[in-house]
């Protein structure tokens, strides 16, 4: 099948029920997509499918024909940073970094849907992405900064 990832077409032959996370990591070597639970509980494997958040561990690759997949590697041009990535750095919304790609993509998807989210909208949209280090307050700050809301550094 043909899989469209980060604007590039890839010819892949996934197993019948292979997950998108496995295809991205094992076949396309896009290891920025992390697998932490492999059963839709944590959000580490979050990618964008046609701009919307999906858990790639629960997404069957064979069902992704014609869908534009964006992974963390494709969020900005090589060597460049998306404003959300920049804000995560500036607000220290990163500790171990394992959940970070998923968090960044979930935050980007949130702002594409709600350009200026309030606190409850941020909580709701981001609560599917676990962070065990506890960067949540910093992530909130990063999202507020990118959406042009007042943030104390």
């Amino acid at each position: 099948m043909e899989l469209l990832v980060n604007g590039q077409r890839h010819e892949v032959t996934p197993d019948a029920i292979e997950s998108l996370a496995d295809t991205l990591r094992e076949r396309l070597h896009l290891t920025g997509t992390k697998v932490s639970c492999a059963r839709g509980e944590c959000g580490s494997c979050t990618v964008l499918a046609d701009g919307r958040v999906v858990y790639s561990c629960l997404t069957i690759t064979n069902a992704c024909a014609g869908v534009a997949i964006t992974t963390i590697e494709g969020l900005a041009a090589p060597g460049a940073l998306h404003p959300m990535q920049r804000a995560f750095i500036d607000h220290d919304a990163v500790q171990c970094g394992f959940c970070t790609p998923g968090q960044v993509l979930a935050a980007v998807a949130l702002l594409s849907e709600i350009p200026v989210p309030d606190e409850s909208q941020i909580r709701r949209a981001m609560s599917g992405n676990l962070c065990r280090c506890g960067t949540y307050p910093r992530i909130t700050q990063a999202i507020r900064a990118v959406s042009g809301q007042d943030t104390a550094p």
Partner: protein
Amino acid sequence: MTTERTRRFIATTIEVEGREETKVVEIPDRTLSPWTADQQLNVVGKPVRRVDAPEKVTGSAVYTSDRTARGLLHAVLVRSTIPHGRAVRIDLEPARAVRGFVDAIVFDDLPKDGKPIRAGGVRFLDPGISYAGHPLACVCADSMRAARAAAHAVRIEYEPAPFAATAARATEPGAPPVRPKGGNISRSSPMVCARGDADQGLAEADVVIRGQYRTPSALHSAMEPHGAVCEWHGDQLTVYEGTQGIFAVRDEVATALGIPRSRVRVVMDHMGGGFGAKNHAAAHTYAAAILARRTGRPVRCVLERAAEQSDTGHRAPSTIDVTLGAKRDGRLTAILVEAVVDQGISGWEASVTKIFHELYACPNVRTTETFAYTNTHAMAAFRGPGHTEGAFALERSMDELARDLGMDPLELRLRNYADHDQEKSRPWSGGDLRRCLEEGARRFGWNWGSNWGQTPISNGSNWGQTRISTEETSHTPQPGNSALTPIPARIRRGFGLAAQVWPAGGGPPAYATVRIHADGSIDVLTGTQDLGTGARTIFAQVAAEALGARVEDVRVVLGDTERTPFAPNSWGSMTTPSVAPAVRMAAEEAHERLLEAASEITGIAPECLTIRDGMIIPSAGAPAVPIAEITRKLGEVTITGNGSRGPNERGVGLMTFGAQFAEVEVDTWTGVVRVIRLTAVHDVGRVINPLLARSQLEGGIIQGLGFALFEERVIDERLGLPLNAGLHDYKVPTMADIPEIDASCLDTVDTVANPVGARGLAEPPIIPTAPAIANAVADALGVAVYEIPLTPWRILAAFEGSQTIN
């Protein structure tokens, strides 16, 4: 650090995770004068951005499970589905039939020369089973999917044995033996620790309160599961492992395989959290190393989430009976504690009673602690092990005492302020709990005495009365004060506080090397680990400061037993206080050499040169030159400095202190607790990077919030099986649970602890969070709470109980 100059190798005592270790230390040739409080520092103390954040936000940071290699095999451990007994037959044939299967090992395939390999407190692949999840075999295959299928295909015949899944069961008369050898309690149990005369102190008390407190088994639940990738090149083994201790893993693997340490290289570049669970080589490490040797191919063994949540350690559950005696003015006269800790099948003894000896001034303390073994997986250090559990029991008891005395809980703590280490009769190196309490109270707006609980009541207590609030909330009365019962309200609001003490002074040995290349770029090499703590950033700042370099010119290389000199495990909040002085010393030596070179090249005396912001600046007005201008002229002669961590100062206690304040709302209809805000003030000595320090404080607080409200591993007592081995049923905090957090550190410098002035910061913030929240809940409901997590059913049970009494 002025003692024993005549000897190079001396013994020194350091405190790791609350336990004392004696180590030999090599006295460094160079001594560092402490960076004092009024010293002008240019990089240290600044909010430098995390140096590895760009890699992490772009997905280019490589974690263990991202490692790949030509011919990589995937390995899966096959685990026991019964808690106790024996695997009498392990049939691998169905696994061999799976397409892609390559190899499998059971106990009999392990090398028989030398001692059996131990992992997670049991013999590796021992067919004698001592907990559910005990590894029995390991299969490997060409793909992850094939490996999983092969693991599922392995057929095991069990001979079950009676088991004990809880400490209460294991310590009953007639309980089944839990382990193959020895009893169901540890050899050191019961461990008694006493000072003064606790019984006499109790007799002298005006007020005595008693309570039994329970803390749950909490799981580390790091986002990256445990994993290893092992690869042999001839007789040289490379282990990529997400570990908190590369040298510990190296030594353990070398010993297990019977090969020299020089033949094992352990690499840890990035890891997805540790929190205490990743301090050692474990079953997955040995399985990957052995299968890689057998197959001649690289092997990756990364745990699935269910295994991560059921066989990688946990915070040991505890039951803590507390008796406090006090004078009417609040001064403690006696502390008596009896505690039982459920270690699981094995584990080191993280004392839950130690904090009772440390936190408050009391002449008479006696604690008795029993460590029980059960047929559950072994405990492992978990952020502030022991103290976090003990703090819940101690700080809840203190609030109960305050309630009995009718005293402001803050005032009670200030009256019992411990200004020195009472156990060893020695001063603290620095640190001030009183200031943490006072500053925290100020930032939080703690105002118990005036506008809270104003209504005086008959017994003199003003606890738990209606507080001034503009919202539709109110307070329950004390049992027995029904005359003053306010209007019942669904949502109750409450306030609580708790304090913390934790040894975090670090210690030797730790080494670092600094190299300045011809182009002026700088390497710092030290064999520590960055778990997400920010160690890379911290050491770049320390090196830049000592060298006069720009932080962006410094690259910190960590986590490679072949490339980097020894540093200890990243545990016990000891990475910064252990390694930063070594980095500083290495950078100062390089600084000195660089000045010598600059002097010889420019003809200006070294004492007339300073280095700052990457420039070498003559004092006499000659133009400044970049470091690279000097080093380029040296060509391949590399400016190098070496540093090591000297011994700790004798006769002082190296402690961190802190206080946290919580405001909660409790829904008395649903039992749901919502934390509204938390204020934390900690004293950890010098803060090297306030941006990262705040992140780490918040992280500890959020884990503490999970411990208070949600987190509890549940074992079915009849089946001995874990019931919530996943991130859906084992609840860690999410974005939706996070209150407003105001976390800060006092502006202090600990010049006694080490020449950098910093103590550790990782563990202190988790310790007081749960008791602060629990105290706020008790305040809101007007009833004591004795058990965490404060799940809705516990809240409803506590609240309904109090209503029945009324």
